């Protein structure tokens, strides 16, 4: 449960990301500002290649090699933070391909202990916290799972484990980069429901990166639409779906709704 002391607002301001291609500097993300609030999900949506994943990674200084953050700051409750300080402590991350985030030769227990250990948490409460988080994330049979290796687990279970590790870190904010894209329909719905429960009951503030308007409809409270490295529209989710203003947003919406012939709110 979040207390009144826990952070309420995370703001990314004026983020700019650049890379060098064949000697020429190319801007990949241009002056992006995002506002993530506790207890809510902000969806960052756009077509592939618009820069949404880079925004997510670069704001925490976790951009891939060859790509650098040129401008921008990240502030929690108005106080500017160094990305290296908040990564893993105040902001947890879950990725599209959960399998790639785990070391194939380590068991889940070893992964779990690595996180809190890195933050100097007392050993006694470590395992307790992880077990509680795993239960929250919907993983049953916690004892058995802690002894498994990644290859012995399905994609859905691994994604839940990632969420559990994020929860166990106690971070009030979560950056989720296409967390359900590689999962099948049923597992996707379960993970999205889990994220919804975590924002509502535990007050988690989520930045959800996705290209699927269906995911936005299922989970988001507010939506930021991105195109070619820029944010072109930010609005509450009802407004985005009922009164889209930008043509890019309208295109995304049209493609999405074309799959629901003659259906209203499903």
């Amino acid at each position, binding site marked *: 449960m979040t207390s009144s002391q826990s952070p309420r607002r995370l703001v990314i301001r004026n983020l700019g990301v650049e890379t060098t291609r064949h000697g020429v500097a190319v801007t990949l993300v241009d002056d992006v500002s995002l506002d993530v609030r506790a207890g809510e999900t902000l969806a960052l949506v756009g077509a*592939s290649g618009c820069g949404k994943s880079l925004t997510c990674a670069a704001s925490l200084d976790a951009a891939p090699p060859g790509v650098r953050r040129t401008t921008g700051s990240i502030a929690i409750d108005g106080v500017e933070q160094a990305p290296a300080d908040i990564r893993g402590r105040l902001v947890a991350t879950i990725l599209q391909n959960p399998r790639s985030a785990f070391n194939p030769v380590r068991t889940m227990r070893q992964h779990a202990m690595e996180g809190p250990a890195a933050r100097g948490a007392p050993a006694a409460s470590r395992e307790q916290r992880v077990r509680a988080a795993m239960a929250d994330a919907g993983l049953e049979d916690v004892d058995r799972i802690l002894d498994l290796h990644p290859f012995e687990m399905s994609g859905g279970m691994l994604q839940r484990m990632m969420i559990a590790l994020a929860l166990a870190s106690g971070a009030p904010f979560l950056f989720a980069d296409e967390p359900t894209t590689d999962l099948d329909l049923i597992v996707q719905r379960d993970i999205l429901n889990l994220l919804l429960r975590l924002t509502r009951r535990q007050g988690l503030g989520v930045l959800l990166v996705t290209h*699927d308007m269906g995911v936005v409809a299922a989970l988001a409270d507010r939506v930021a639409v991105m195109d070619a490295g820029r944010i072109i529209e930010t609005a509450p989710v009802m407004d985005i779906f009922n009164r889209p203003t930008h043509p890019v947003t309208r295109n995304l919406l049209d493609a999405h709704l074309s799959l629901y012939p003659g259906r209203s709110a499903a």
Partner: protein
Amino acid sequence: MSLLAARGASRIYRNGPAGRGGATALDQVSLDIAPGECVALLGRSGCGKSTLARLLAGLERPDAGEVRFAGRSLSTFGRADWRAFRCAVQLVFQDPVSAVNPRETVGQIIAEPLRHLRGLTGVAATGQIQALLRAVDLPADAMGRLPQQLSGGQLQRVCIARALAAQPQLLILDEAVSNLDLHLQIQMLDLFARLKHDRDVSYLFITHDLRLAERFCDRVLVMCDGRLVEETRVGGAFALTSPEGRALQDAILPAMPFRRARAG
């Protein structure tokens, strides 16, 4: 007359995934695909859809039962039969990155089936390659690119072009459009629909997205734990009745957001 059929096909993996031994991937599966028909195969991850696809494409042999092409079992095929089969039945994989040789250019990738299955090389092949690239909405200068220089969506279109190079009568799409952006998915499905109309091409569309299946296909099969559990025609009020089918239908993402209770 069915174009491609499975009769009681079963497949058991000795070292199953997730560390289990002897996992049954397919259990007595029978189905038929007629010329010009589009069949959707739905199911969750791990239910055996991809295994069935590989069996139908002749990439693996069933441990029990058989796969028949134009009435003849694949196990009786000689060299010439296999060549005719490969010309007629093609498959597009889900992950384009591992489905192409990273050292070959797009032109070389598409040239391979042209050479082996249609005997085209040189200038004739180049012409065909450019026509295929146009068909999947890629620029002609993509021919000289390497896979790492293309995005996932572009690479998948190259794989689709490669499969179309053989001018197949049946195309198996193993979650082939699942990783593309929605507008590209719709674009590819429209392309497939055109081919179906012009050349009577059949499709086995493996997916877990019911919305696309409903839009594109004539018939829907539902798989669960290696078995076929339901079969329905698409059209009118489309509702699945089996427990697995209903679970899939309930899991469809909503079209519009609904009012959600806010946190306190």
